[in-house]
C-alpha cells in the first residue's frame, strides 16, 4: 500500500475509492548516478519508485576502485602513507593519522610529544575543512548556493595553512611512521590561532544562513530518520551515529594518540527540529563538532612543546614485527580502521581498510525506502559520503 496514494484517496472522501477499478501500476526503475550532482562522486543508486515514493535503494559502488589494499601489500609501510591520502580525499590528514597510528601500534614505538601535538592540530583542522565541505555541499543539495561559497572561503584558509606546512593543498602525505615529515614553519601557531578566532565567529553565521533557515529545516527535519538499533546493526559511526543520539567518539571513548589530554564535548542529535536521528540532526552534529575541534586545536597549540618531530632511531625502511592489529581512529566521517597483518618484513602481509563511508552508505538500503526521491537526496547528503574511501 502506498501512503501517499492512500492519503490522497482519504482526503477526497475515502468512499469513492471502492467504486474505482483497481489501478494497475508497476514500479519504475530509476538510476541516480553514476553522474548525478547529489551523489557526491561516482555513486550509482538503483532506485525502484512507486510514483514519487522510493520503494527500494540499491547502491552500486566501485567506480573509483584502485585496490589500495593490494597496493599496500606491494610497497613498504612508509610508502603507503601517500596512498592513504587518496582514501578520503577531503580529509587526507585524518587518513594519514589512522594509518600511521595502526602501524606504530604494531611496531610498539612511541612518537615524540611535539609530533603528537602537530598531528592533533592538523587532524582537527582537517576535520573542520572536511565538515565545511559537508556543510557546503549539503546546502547545495538542498538548493542553497551561498553556504558552499562561505564554506570554501573558510576552507581556503586551512588549505593555505597546510600548504605552508607541507606544500600540498589537497593531498598532504604529511604524517610519517614515527612522527611527521616537516617541522612547523615560523608563525604557524599564531596563524592557526588567528584562524580559530575568526572561524568560531563564522559558525554563528552558518547557523543563521542555513542551520535555522526555515526552508532548510523543512527539507531535512524528520527526513531519513536513523534509529540507534539500525545505526549499530549497519556499523554506522561518526556524525551519522552521533546524529542518532549516541554520544560515542573514538577520540574520547577509545583514545589514541594524545586525545585523552584534551577537553571537548561529543555533540549528539537531540531531535530539536523533529525526530532524533533525522538528516538535520546529522547535519547539526557536524556544525557543533567544528566548534569542538576549535577547542581541541586551541588546547593543542597552547601545549605545543619543543623537541624532535619524529622518532630518531627509525631506519628509512621500517620493518614491522610479525603480528596483527586492528586500529581505529575517528576520521571526519567516522571510524576509520586499518587491520594490518605483518610478517616481519617491510611490507604488510595484508592491509584491510575499514572506511566509515562504506558502512554509512550501506544503511541507505535500510532508511531510503519509503521516502520521496527528493528526500533521498537529503538523506544521502546528510551521510557525508566520500567515494574515494568507499571504493578504495
Amino acid at each position, binding site marked *: 500500500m502506498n501512503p501517499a496514494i492512500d492519503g490522497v484517496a482519504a482526503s477526497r472522501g475515502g468512499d469513492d475509492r471502492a467504486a474505482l477499478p483497481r489501478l494497475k501500476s508497476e514500479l519504475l526503475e530509476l538510476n541516480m548516478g553514476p553522474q548525478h550532482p547529489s551523489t557526491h562522486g561516482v555513486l550509482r543508486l538503483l532506485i525502484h519508485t512507486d510514483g514519487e515514493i522510493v520503494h527500494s535503494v540499491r547502491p552500486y*559502488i*566501485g567506480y573509483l*576502485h584502485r*585496490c589500495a*589494499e*593490494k597496493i599496500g*601489500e*606491494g610497497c613498504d609501510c612508509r610508502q603507503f602513507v601517500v596512498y592513504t591520502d587518496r582514501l578520503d580525499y577531503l580529509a587526507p590528514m585524518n587518513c594519514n593519522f589512522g594509518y600511521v597510528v595502526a602501524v606504530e*601500534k*604494531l611496531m*610498539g614505538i612511541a612518537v615524540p610529544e611535539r609530533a603528537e601535538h602537530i598531528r592533533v592540530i592538523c587532524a582537527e583542522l582537517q576535520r573542520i575543512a572536511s565538515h565545511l565541505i559537508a556543510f557546503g555541499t549539503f546546502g547545495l543539495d538542498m538548493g542553497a548556493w551561498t553556504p558552499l561559497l562561505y564554506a570554501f572561503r573558510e576552507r581556503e584558509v586551512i588549505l593555505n595553512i597546510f600548504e605552508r606546512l607541507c606544500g600540498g593543498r589537497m593531498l598532504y602525505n604529511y604524517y610519517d611512521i614515527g612522527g611527521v615529515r616537516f617541522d612547523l614553519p615560523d608563525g604557524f601557531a599564531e596563524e592557526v590561532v588567528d584562524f580559530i578566532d575568526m572561524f568560531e565567529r563564522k559558525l554563528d553565521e552558518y547557523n543563521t544562513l542555513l542551520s535555522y533557515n526555515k526552508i532548510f529545516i523543512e527539507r531535512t527535519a524528520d527526513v531519513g530518520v536513523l534509529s540507534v538499533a539500525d545505526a*549499530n*546493526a*549497519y*556499523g554506522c559511526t561518526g556524525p551519522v551515529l552521533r546524529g542518532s543520539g*549516541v554520544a*560515542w567518539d573514538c577520540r574520547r*571513548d*577509545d583514545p589514541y594518540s594524545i586525545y585523552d589530554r584534551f577537553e571537548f564535548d561529543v555533540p549528539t542529535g537531540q531531535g530539536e527540529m523533529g525526530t532524533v536521528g533525522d538528516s538535520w540532526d546529522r547535519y547539526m552534529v557536524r556544525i557543533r563538532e567544528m566548534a569542538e575541534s576549535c577547542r581541541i586545536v586551541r588546547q593543542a597549540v597552547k601545549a605545543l612543546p619543543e623537541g624532535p618531530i619524529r622518532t630518531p632511531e627509525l631506519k628509512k625502511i621500517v620493518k614491522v*614485527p*610479525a*603480528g*596483527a*592489529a*586492528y586500529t*581505529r581512529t575517528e576520521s571526519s566521517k567516522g*571510524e576509520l*580502521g586499518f*587491520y594490518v*597483518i605483518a*610478517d*616481519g*618484513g617491510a*611490507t604488510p*602481509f*595484508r592491509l*584491510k581498510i*575499514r572506511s566509515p563511508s*562504506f*558502512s554509512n552508505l*550501506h544503511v541507505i538500503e*535500510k532508511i531510503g525506502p519509503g521516502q520521496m526521491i527528493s528526500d533521498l537526496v537529503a538523506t544521502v547528503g546528510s551521510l557525508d559520503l566520500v567515494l574515494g574511501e568507499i*571504493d*578504495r
Partner: protein
Amino acid sequence: MEPAAIHQLLVEKFGDAVVGWHPDGPEPCAEVAPARVADVALFLRDDPRLAFALLMCLSGIDWDGYDAAGKGKSVAILGYRADGTPEAGERVATGDLGVAYHLYSYAHRHKFTLRARVPRAQPSLPTVCRVWPTAAWHEREAWDLLGIVFTGHPDPRRILLEDGWIGHPLRKDYAMPGAWEGVPLQGQPYAVSSAKPVLPPPSAPAPRPAPPDQGARGPAEGGSA
C-alpha cells in the same frame, strides 16, 4: 571483559568448535571452526555478558606464504615481462584463506577478535549478515577480492569490481590480466603494451580548402569592423 575471559566463555559454550587461541601480540584472538561461525557470532551478540553490538570490521585474508617468523615469501605482486604479459609465479599458492571479525561492545566497552580459517580448495563459511547486517557488504567485498564464499548470503554479488571480472585480486597468486576490455592494465607504457591502441589507418592528409580570398578586403576598410 578481557579477551582471555571471553575466550573461556566461548570454550565453555562451544567446546571443540573453538579451535585456537592466540594470546600474544597487540591483539589476542580466538579461532573457531568455520562451520560454527554464525552460531558463535549470534552468541557473542546476544549474550548479555558480551553484547557485541558492533561488527567494526570483517576482513578476508589469504594466509598463503605467511610465516610468523618473518620468513614468509609473499607472491603478492608479480612482475610483467617487457611485452606486457604477466610473469607466472613459481610457487603455487596452497595456504588457507581466512576471515577476521573485529567486534566491539558499546555496553561493556570491550573488543574481541574472532578468526576462522577455510581451506583454499573449498573456501566457504556461513554468513553472519543476519547477526550484523553490516557484514553483508564486507562479505561481498571478501568474495569479490578474495573469493571466499559466504553460504546463505542474500546478495552474493561482487561489490567493487565488475560482475564479469575474472579472479580475485587480493589472493596471493593472482596475476593481473594484461588488458581488460582493450584497456591495458599492467602499468606498462601504452605503446609497449600487448593491447595496442587501434589507430585509424594512415592516409594522405586531405587537401586543405583554399583559403578565402582576403586580398579583396584591404586593411584600409577593416578599421571599424
